[in-house]
């Protein structure tokens, strides 16, 4: 039902106006099938933004435009991109842009589509970022499982290089910046920016202590100042440069402007990626766009940011809430990378939480004590509960062990691991109680 949601939102003429003229900004491959090809991309205005930046704008002007557009990082944290770029010291002789394409969050598959189907836009975005900080090289860190994708991406980069859009003396400007692909090899933690940098350097992919932060001398790739941006974030950059900050801010809400790709998976009629302005509601996304829940079932649980954010009970209040960074936070969860895993009324929430906990135990790098030991113990407790051997004490531990992890860990993975546990224990406690026999009348004590 394309367009249906436009009508539903006609009361907001501001947003409506933009969307009438543009169907996709990021997923242009949905409109132009062969846009992955260099010639097609260029024929449709591709690399004009890079040319504009390099030929007409100073690096600082590029940063100002992106800052003014209030582009927020699409990897999950929502940090303002322009500010991130502005932290890079101007006088450092070596600087890097690193593109985070380690997309590994369960329920997230947007970067993959961008890189597979609209790769030049990501390359162009990365080069705009590189120009803005005057980077000396770009590394695109692809998760190892994107093996085929990475090989194709290298060919796309080569096409850009041959057109003098990457590599030596870009567009005759005197600025040189090669673009490389680095392939990971199966580690969720390498999506954490400092672990990612370690991984490129050939050292163990564990997070680093910060400060120094990647933007600082000593904290980045090869210890040089480095910008680390998510694929989707950078895919926004060409449009912003071409259309300006105001046009960009006309999409979405003032705090969360721009288009966002929503990944829909789990119990959903039409799984896949949906590019929509930030600010539409849960209901619009789930029912109007993705077709609702299969087999006429009711929706029970929503994970708005993959496995790493708290689960939301699908109440009417939630369904009517707008999808912005702020409003989802107000509901007690996080929009993160906007990876929606939907669970229908028949879903066993204990089982679902156990699945996610197992994921985090498997992916904990082991560097810091609370995450290493805590995820191990949470997983062990879940195994016990699912075996039917859980006790009331185990349920108590599921509530208390996260308190020993959250806020006390080296990176966010440990915090993420606690979210599915705590949010399901709090909101679906009855299901846990069934597992541990607490729902039965208390006969033993009598």
């Amino acid at each position: 039902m394309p367009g249906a949601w436009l009508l539903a939102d006609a009361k907001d003429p501001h947003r409506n106006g933009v969307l009438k003229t543009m169907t996709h900004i990021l997923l242009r491959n949905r409109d132009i099938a062969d846009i992955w090809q260099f010639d097609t991309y260029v024929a449709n205005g591709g690399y004009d933004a890079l040319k504009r930046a390099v030929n007409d704008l100073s690096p600082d002007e590029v940063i100002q435009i992106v800052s003014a557009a209030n582009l927020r990082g699409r990897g999950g944290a929502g940090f303002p991109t322009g500010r991130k770029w502005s932290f890079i010291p101007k006088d450092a002789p070596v600087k890097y842009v690193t593109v985070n394409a380690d997309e590994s969050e369960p329920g997230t598959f947007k970067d993959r589509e961008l890189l597979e189907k609209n790769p030049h836009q990501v390359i162009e975005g990365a080069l705009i970022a590189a120009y803005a900080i005057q980077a000396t090289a770009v590394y695109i860190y692809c998760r190892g499982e994107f093996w085929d994708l990475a090989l194709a991406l290298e060919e796309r980069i080569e096409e850009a290089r041959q057109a003098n859009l990457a590599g030596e003396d870009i567009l005759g400007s005197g600025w040189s910046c090669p673009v490389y692909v680095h392939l990971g090899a199966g580690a969720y933690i390498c999506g954490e920016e400092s672990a990612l940098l370690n991984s490129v350097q050939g050292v163990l992919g564990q997070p680093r202590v910060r400060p120094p932060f990647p933007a600082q001398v000593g904290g980045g790739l090869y210890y040089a100042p480095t910008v680390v941006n998510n694929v989707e974030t950078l895919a926004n950059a060409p449009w912003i440069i071409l259309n300006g900050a105001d046009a960009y801010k006309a999409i979405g809400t003032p705090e969360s402007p721009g288009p966002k790709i929503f990944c829909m998976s789990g119990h959903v009629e039409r799984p896949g990626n949906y590019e929509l302005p930030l600010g539409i509601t849960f209901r619009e996304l789930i029912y109007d766009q993705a077709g609702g829940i299969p087999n006429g079932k009711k929706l029970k649980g929503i994970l708005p940011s993959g496995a790493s954010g708290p689960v939301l009970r699908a109440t009417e209040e939630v369904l009517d809430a707008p999808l912005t960074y702020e409003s989802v936070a107000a509901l007690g969860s996080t929009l993160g990378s906007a990876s929606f895993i939907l669970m229908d009324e028949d879903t066993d929430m204990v089982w679902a939480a156990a699945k996610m906990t197992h994921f985090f135990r498997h992916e904990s790098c082991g560097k810091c004590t609370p995450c290493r030991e805590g995820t191990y113990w949470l997983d062990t407790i879940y195994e016990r509960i699912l075996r039917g051997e859980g006790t009331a004490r185990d349920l108590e531990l599921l509530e208390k062990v996260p308190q020993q992890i959250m806020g006390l860990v080296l990176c966010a993975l440990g915090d993420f691991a606690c979210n599915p546990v705590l949010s399901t224990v709090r909101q679906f406690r009855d299901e846990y109680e069934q597992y541990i026999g607490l729902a039965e009348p208390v006969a033993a004590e009598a």
Partner: protein
Amino acid sequence: MTETITIIIDGQDYQVPRGMNLVDAAKMHGVDIPVFCHHPKLEPVGMCRMCLVELGSLAVNRETGQPERDENGQPVVRWFPKLQTACTQEASPGMAVRTDSAAVAQARYNVLEFLLTSHPLDCPICDKGGECPLQELTMAYGPGQSRFIYDDKMHLAKQIPLGDLICLDRERCIQCARCIRFCDEIVGDEVLAFHERGRRLQIITISDPPFDTKFSGNTTDICPVGALTTVDFRFGARPWELDEVASICPHCPVGCNISASTRLDRDFGGRKMIKRIMPRQNEAVNEIWICDKGRFGHHHSRSEERLTQPMIRRDEEWVPITWETAYREIAAQLARHGRESGFLAGASLSNEDLWELRKLARLTHADCSLGVWPATMGGIEQVTQVGVGVGTRLQDLGPDSAILVIASDLDEEAPIWWLQVKQAADRGAKVVAANGRATKLDQYATVALRYPYGEAVAALNSFAVIARRSNAIDEAFVAARAEGFAEFDASLKGARVPKPYAEAAQALLGAKDLVVFVGGEGVTLAQHGELMQAAANLLILTGHAGRANNGLIPVWPGANMQGALDMGFGPQATHDLIAQRPAMWIIAEADPVAEDARMAEVLVGAEFVALATQFMTPTAEKAHVLLPVQSFAEREGTFTNGLRRVQRFYMAQTPLEGTLPAWKVFAHISSSMPGGAKPRIAPGLVMRDITQHVLRYAEMSYPNLAHVEPQFPLVGGEDMYYGGTAYSNHGGLGVQWATNAEKEKYSLAVRPVDVARPRLDGLAVVPVRLLYDREPLFAPSSIMHQRVPAPYVELNVRDAEALGIAEGDAVMLTADDVQMAAEARVNSHAPAGTVLVPQRLGATPIPATLVECVVQKMEG
């Protein structure tokens, strides 16, 4: 100097250096922040989360710039919402810390509970029990019992050998990575790493050989649990049964401060024996590290091969005699031979031994030569002038420093110095590694300078030439202190300096501090004095003399060569003796027959040879009387290290019955001579004699040498969790004697230079030293045998091809009167035209430095 700032810890103000690590800053003031992964000598990683504290900063009014105050006039602190790891914070002005709040206590409790859920409760059989940080901190901050189910505990391998010296217990490991980081950061041998991830994280090594580093034992000291233990000490004793005795390592010129852990032991007839050797903190010497030779090379002191009975040779048979008989016999022989007696002292004798030997020599005849063994390096004159300044700490060398290492493979000859030079390079010091071949230091050097063997003097003289031509002369210093500058200047005319020498020299010029290490590899004794003078020239001309962290450090062969030279023994005297062939010899703790092909014949030709020795060495086989003397472990004494620090060692082990300390033996012989005095009854009294007769030792009384001062970081004691189990120093920090450069009244001699480059003909022998060899004090430590290679020689590929020799071939090396069989190693390590021959790997002597030789493949 670093600026001092004020930080607030638990409501109290403390003065600390700006930028200091918060855990260390708190520790300095006696505030404990418990840690596992943090170590004051390592970079912070924030892994274990044990050091979580509440952190904040004083609120400052933006307009006035003044600290904000609450209604009571107290400064307002803005606290971070989350706890922060103290180990990753640098002290900054206005920093406020709470270590005593309930939240902090809870966080510590939580971390300990987590660690203990995966940790076995095998403290009663764990080697670390009693000195275990995990045990210690659990008692202080941890839970009484775990809420987790013990049945779910992971069971893992408990005895994984990490090489032949260290054992890993995987169950006990808490993944703090101190061992890995020690290897990576401090040593640069990346031979340990984590394998897998999460709770499966485990320490591995697949280097060849496994855990391939000379410093592996230190990981067991800083391991905060019993995961890493030494094979040498494993299940050997409980820490609380051990008595600690301060000692000095007898193996090399670094003079590492060590602690002998001793107990009365059934394996040693109920007598006191050394169970293990541990580092003892001396921040000016070895800090808190020792090498594996020092740690595991103590077994000679209890070897069954030790001699325990004075003996005399009668009709080619060794016949036991009493000490009394031995003294009288030797005294009579000395009286008979008078000035025809030669004295030869080994470099592992204590200063007291040396002094008594010297007294004996002087009593015999004023003209008796006092030789030292090995007699390969000279230059006491230059050390006296510009030896490294009093107060030098190699760990203070950094971005403003330059270090030259010439003619030495520091890694093999003085490992802890190598470690300190490497770390100085890491901190930004300019390092020039100059030698005839590649050494391990090259990878950390600013310039790795290769000169053809034989050219060391020309190379180092070139440095002074470049200093002069680059206007890097310290005019004021030279004007005030140097003599001979005009002659030096005149000698430069027309001196041509090859480009690589000039570049290496340039790398050193302009630094605030300059230290020059001079070794003896590939340098004959005749050249060595010139080499030391070349170093002295450079140091004097550039003004790098007479102050701490500047000057000359000779890489002597042996632990107390410096002491031997100070007591008047010298290498030239040794060569004179070999030439003169005196009829009577007294040799102490040296084995010249094993090392010099001429010596067997020289001694056979002598009428009487008395040898003080611990072992039946090749030299002993040529002697007439054998005097069984004690090892360093069995008596008191002092050694003087390469930085001229005189250091005390104490009696750690019950002496083997029938043995005596060498000083006492010589004193008794003296008292049997006409005019001899009664022997001193204690080594401290011998030292008192030395202080009265040897000017530079005037301050070296035993009480002075035993003086200690607080050192940082704190180790041992209550602070095991912090600095590790290295022992704090209660035995004395030692005293350095001051050089002439440090005394205004002395002028310093600069000499003319010669940059002529001699040419070597044929195939020249270059003896090299390996840390792990078969010298008598090390060979009995069988735990190390796997690390000692069979005799080999290294040949350049080009030479080997010409000679038809391939890698692994058995070859015969012939030079003068030496014939030695060895295995050939063919590589590019040895420069063309030279054969590298490691010393003391086999039973036969090797040729002398730069002697021409023939290498042939052995048939069949």
